């Protein structure tokens, strides 16, 4: 019984991993045309990719924009949520609706409006990373809000603050010493979820900024015709970068917990 479940599990895993494996194989092969298996293996594509300054810049841009948007969201959302949960708990219902708005408007639609709004003075933001950071902030908002709201509910924040107050702590001290450390898990999940979502976002990145501040997604799109092996190497590297960051964040989080 157990063994057959494990067998099934492996089969499902294999099916899911197959495209990735094929891409990996393709990225490592010299040519792979009319034959069943590749003619030979090489690291040429990988080396070519990782020594391409354009790729490194795009990678840097992507990480910068994603992290920028996430830092921005946390810095803005955490205090806002604290104030709502502690002083205006009734606003929670409003927030729950508000938080879903970014999903109500598809990026293709919103980008047209954003282009109109931010292509003229006083706010000429199209083509700069700032507009992407702003957009990604709104996209990350639902993930971050939900994860943090659940976390706040789970730790029974109000009672913790009450207890801290009675022990002589100010609301500031209660928030920093008691509430914030207990939101770490929720914040971590929120950041990780949004990061993996944002680093693959293509529509807004391409329409609002494009090649003027090339991110990884846009770079992939622009070099897709060069060579299949090359873009395969790119996709695999892309995947590895996300995997590495996720693993790193997870390891850091566990160590401190």
């Amino acid at each position, binding site marked *: 019984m157990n063994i057959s479940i494990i067998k099934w599990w492996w089969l499902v895993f294999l099916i899911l991993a197959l495209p990735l494996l094929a891409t990996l194989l393709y990225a490592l092969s010299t040519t792979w045309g009319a034959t069943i298996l590749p003619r030979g293996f090489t690291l040429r594509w990988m080396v070519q990719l990782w020594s391409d300054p354009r790729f490194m810049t795009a990678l840097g841009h992507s990480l910068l924009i994603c992290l920028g948007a996430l830092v921005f969201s946390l810095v803005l959302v955490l205090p806002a949520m604290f104030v709502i949960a502690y002083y205006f708990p009734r606003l929670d219902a409003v927030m729950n609706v508000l938080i879903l708005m970014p999903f109500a408007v598809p990026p293709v639609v919103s980008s047209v409006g954003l282009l109109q709004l931010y292509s003229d003075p006083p706010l000429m933001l199209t083509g700069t990373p700032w507009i992407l950071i702003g957009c990604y902030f709104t996209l990350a908002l639902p993930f971050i809000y939900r994860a943090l709201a659940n976390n706040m509910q789970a*730790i*029974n924040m109000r*009672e*913790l603050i*009450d*207890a*801290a*107050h*009675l*022990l*002589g*702590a*100010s609301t500031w*001290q209660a928030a920093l*010493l*008691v509430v914030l*450390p*207990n939101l770490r898990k929720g914040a971590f999940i929120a950041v990780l979820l949004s990061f993996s979502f944002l680093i693959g976002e293509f529509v807004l990145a391409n329409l609002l900024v494009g090649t003027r501040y090339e991110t990884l997604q846009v770079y992939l799109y622009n070099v897709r015709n060069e060579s299949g092996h090359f873009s395969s190497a790119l996709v695999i590297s892309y995947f590895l970068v996300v995997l590495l960051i996720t693993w790193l964040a997870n390891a850091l989080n566990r160590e401190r917990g």
Partner: protein
Amino acid sequence: MSWLNVTRLSKSYGPTMIFQDIDFSASEGEFVTLLGPSGCGKSTLLRCIAGLTPVDGGQILLDGQDIAPLTPQNRAVGMVFQSYALFPNMTVERNVAFGLKMQKLPASAISQRVAEVLELVEMNDYARRYPHQLSGGQCQRVALARSLVTRPRLLLLDEPLSALDARIRRHLRDRIRSIQKELNLTTLFVTHDQEEALVLSDRIVLMDQGRIVQTGNAEALYTQPVNLFAAGFIGHYNLLTAEQAAQLTGETFHRQVALRPESVVFCPSGQGIPAQILGHSLLGNVIRYRVKAKEVELWVDVLNRSVESLHPAGFQVGLLLEPGTLREVA
């Protein structure tokens, strides 16, 4: 002059009155219980005394000082919550030390006082544990230590035992009482459990729908309930109409009559008021019989001495009623 004096305290949320014109006092070292059904306003009253909820009007005198306008930080009042409210990110030690750190005491003094108070609640072996590694009873003892370490002028306990299982509840109940006596700490205890209230308190303040129904010690509340609510809330009562009571005893009554099931005594058939057993249920050390006497049905509690003394349904007995046990209530 009492240590704590609450006068004309009122609180409402919009049109909803939570409590009104609450007056009670506690002398130094007294253990006072606020007893009442859920929603009677007792927990809100406690939160108001702690300063966590603002009051609409009234005075809270603690050691001669009106603390009603003060923030909770400045009241020097300790509180234990039903859900423990321990800080999950801190060890037992750091939880207990928190209040002293806020007072900016030197580290050596803090660690000494933390060790003392952990000893008092028998938790010194667990100082390095996190709250999630402790059982409910242990958590509540840490919470108690955390509120005692700052040496509060008044200790507030908000249903601290309600989340615990029966055995631990009894043990912690006795521990709380002995610590309270040892420190001579004025304590306000909120509960909906009449047994806890009767066992622990020097004085009980019985509340219903935002008002105080009766104040007194356990005996007074048990034997002399002032009204129907008080009679029904504490212990078990037979409630008879004036007619039923007259029928049973032959005397005249003007109001409803409350009769404790344990104050009715069985005697051999032929003596007392003739009655028939209808059935029984076993409550452990007590057997509760349902009996019928002169067309009136009654509960009668008898100590469960042995299996042989159990009366089967249909058995004929006599009932003895002391006149003083029948109490007219409003």
